[in-house]
């Protein structure tokens, strides 16, 4: 249940952001973290939980994609 997926912030709008997960775009609340377009973030239960260090996030994103968990 503590599953959180890495994605990229596309745009921000008030208290939420559009986050891209390998082409799937979902809206996530941003009240727990200040984010900007381009940020790599972890999303849990419709909410951005944390910003990620980019170079590590790319690797994690690739691994999750391999595992078939994003989509």
């Amino acid at each position, binding site marked *: 249940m503590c599953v959180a997926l890495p994605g990229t912030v596309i745009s921000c709008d008030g208290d939420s952001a559009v986050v891209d997960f390998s082409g799937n775009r979902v809206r996530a609340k941003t009240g727990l*973290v200040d984010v900007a377009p381009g940020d790599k973030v972890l999303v849990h239960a419709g909410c951005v939980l944390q910003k990620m260090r980019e170079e590590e996030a790319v690797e994690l994103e690739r691994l999750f994609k391999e595992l078939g968990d994003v989509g």
Partner: protein
Amino acid sequence: MSDEALAAVKARLKAYDGPRMRIMEVCGSHTAAIVKNGIPGLLSKQIELVAGPGCPVCVTPTDYIDRLIALSQEENTCVVTFGDLLRVPGSAGTLMQAKNAGGRAEMVYSPFDILAMAQAEPATTFIFAAVGFETTAPVYALLLDQIVEAHIENIRFLTALKTMPPVIDALCAGGADVQGLIAPGHVAVVIGSDAFKPLAEAYQLPFGVAGFSGMHLLYAIDGIVRARGRGTVMNFYPEAVTPTGNVKAQDLVAKYFEPGDALWRGIGVIPGSGLFLKLAVQCFDMGSQALQHDHPMNAACRCGEVLRGAIAPQDCPLFKTACTPLHPQGACMVSAEGNCLSVYNQN
């Protein structure tokens, strides 16, 4: 991490012939990832992984499920929940069965979906089944913030929120046969890796904070094995976890919730291991603190011992006989992160 570094870790884990290491992965998502990645097959026979109590659905007592079922059957109410909770047995059936018999329960992927539901039906009281650990608690706190701000009056919560350090403390104090722990990665994103330091030091056990890929887990296990006997916390998930965690999320949780004693299914009451709505926002609560009983449907169910890491799922006489994913006798066979379902799927 380079391919060479990963190859070295794999070789080291396979060749390990030191003292036996029993390592507990506390988090249910880790259990699922370990099975999915075939991690046990990559380890020396001297390294054993054992699952712990980190599946929120699995540790939710029957009283809680029974209360959800009763609420779903009241006039003008709707229980809103994540999917797994629909199938967890209470003392007399599941929420899904109650729904099929005319109760009202809706599944959502995000708790924020309840906002639109409540606004569309102002005469209905929507009750969110707020289960989870530190990872999910800030999401409920943020939702509550929005409910208060928008003056939405027809949303309530039935909470079963729990925290990880107290249960790890209780297991270690109870003499759990473990020589290291894989700390829950997404709990650590919120509370920070330093939150595990007092436990590591008190019990002189290595804790490895890990992410959820096979590589993350192998690095963490390798680190834990190499740190055997040392009370230390190692962060193998630095891209997401910092020593202090997400302070903004912690502050929001503290605004609305306070610690209290909580009942863990199959384990018992652990002091200070729950999060309950504060007095100022008690008006949003549907009686969460009164839910202090657990009545297993099947007396032979050994979920409690499985959740404590005392036995493997295969050691339970009901496993794969009376207890299967289609006819679960305990919560560990229901959740996608349940220890029993993970092992069932592996076999």
